């Protein structure tokens, strides 16, 4: 288990024990974190699991997957340097303590 913290747009923080191998998106859904819709179920086809990786974690969560950027451009809230689709962020020991910020809008 590793810990992931989700920060709501209003600043509210929730820290979750995440299972290695799940995606950050699955972790959010399984724990009822608000603000991650994941309508397409992780197929990189909807951009409703958009999140911003905390600046402190920049460069430590790997590169965007092929096709992820095209979909991020279709996200409801602005795409930033730190934008990721949380369905493409795999939970591993390397990201223990990861902080992600949720956007104002998902759909």
């Amino acid at each position, binding site marked *: 288990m590793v810990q992931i913290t989700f920060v709501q747009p209003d600043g509210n923080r929730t820290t979750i024990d995440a299972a290695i191998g799940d995606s950050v998106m699955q972790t959010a859904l399984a724990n009822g974190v608000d603000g991650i819709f994941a309508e397409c*179920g992780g197929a990189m086809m909807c951009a409703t699991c958009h999140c911003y990786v905390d600046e402190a974690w920049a460069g430590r969560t790997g590169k965007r997957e092929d*096709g992820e950027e095209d979909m991020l451009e*279709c996200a409801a809230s602005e795409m930033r340097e730190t934008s990721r689709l949380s369905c493409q962020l795999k939970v591993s020991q390397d990201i223990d303590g990861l902080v992600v910020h949720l956007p104002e809008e998902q759909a």
Partner: protein
Amino acid sequence: MAVAPVDETLTLADLTRDPYPIYRRMRAETPIVRVPAANRIFLTKAKHTKMVKEDPELYSSDDPVTPMQRAFQAHTLMRKDGVEHRRERMAMQPSFSPKVVKSDWSTLYTDIARDYLDRLPRGETVDLFTALCGPVAARILAHMLGLDEASDADMMRWSQILIDGAGNFGFDEEPFARSDAANAEMNALFDKLAPRHRAEPNNSAFSVMVNARDPIPTSQIYANIKIAIGGGINEPRDALATIVYGLLTNPEQLEEVRRQGAWLDAFEEGIRWVAPIQASSRRAVRDLQIDGIDIPEGVTLMTIQASANRDEELYEDGEAFNVFRKKVPHQAFGSGPHHCAGAHIARRTVGEIMLPMLFERFPDMSLERPEDVVWSGFGFRGPLNLPVRLN
């Protein structure tokens, strides 16, 4: 190991008339059931429909015997998987993105909505389905696709003909003769419009596709515009009609929606309650099992999202229209790689533009005889009429 139970007596006519009591019974007694009349195994539970749609490697969209191919004269992205599907889909996705909705479509669609509302008489009973829901959906789609020149009537006619052709499982000649003629009309229009979209790039799907750095073949551009015509009018039309019906038959909810401005919640509940697209097909790529039931290779599964959206495991009193129910995700837009490309734009146009404008324009409109509204459809479903007194 168990063979799926068979529902020998069920007919497509039964499902077209009112599938909901049938699905309710199936969920309780035979959630995975073979229906010979449809030549498919039905999946009626939310967990099963979602699982199948999210696993394209085991459950393919590629149906080698689909009448859709014949109707569209092409193998369309709806029936493709993997990278091939992604490439075609992403070719037009920018036109439907929130950014373009904000920059191009919001203002235009508000103007279109106002214009179509202006045409409606006050103090009379009007069939909103034919006077508003269909035409406004057609006009909005024409602009989104870059087919401004096409009339509402042509857009609606082509759409219905393509749908009829795609649903022509008996491969009768007549529907295909009509779809061939419609394809010829659409191709001629597209040929005429292509030079303009090349010369004056814009954010319509047509223009975005022809001006891409690495465009998909013209044949696929045309096929995919046709998919959008076939699949982009009846859904917003039926969604709008369904939601208006739901609100007018539940005045206390309408009042609360007004008070809170909860039009988007009304939208989500309407499409959960009666999903405009009720069912989809997937093919098992090898021998599989779902919850202990054998799914033989090659069999076509029908994921019934209409049923999933009322699944007792997820929804309390799911048969009822209740805007203010506990929020639980629904599957009206599907799930997995084929999740509706128009989901975002549908929310904006129907939920944020059409609904509030309609109810603001006619604050005292009423559905005097709800029993006169005729509901129909198995694959696609909605009211066929909506006689509303406009006041």
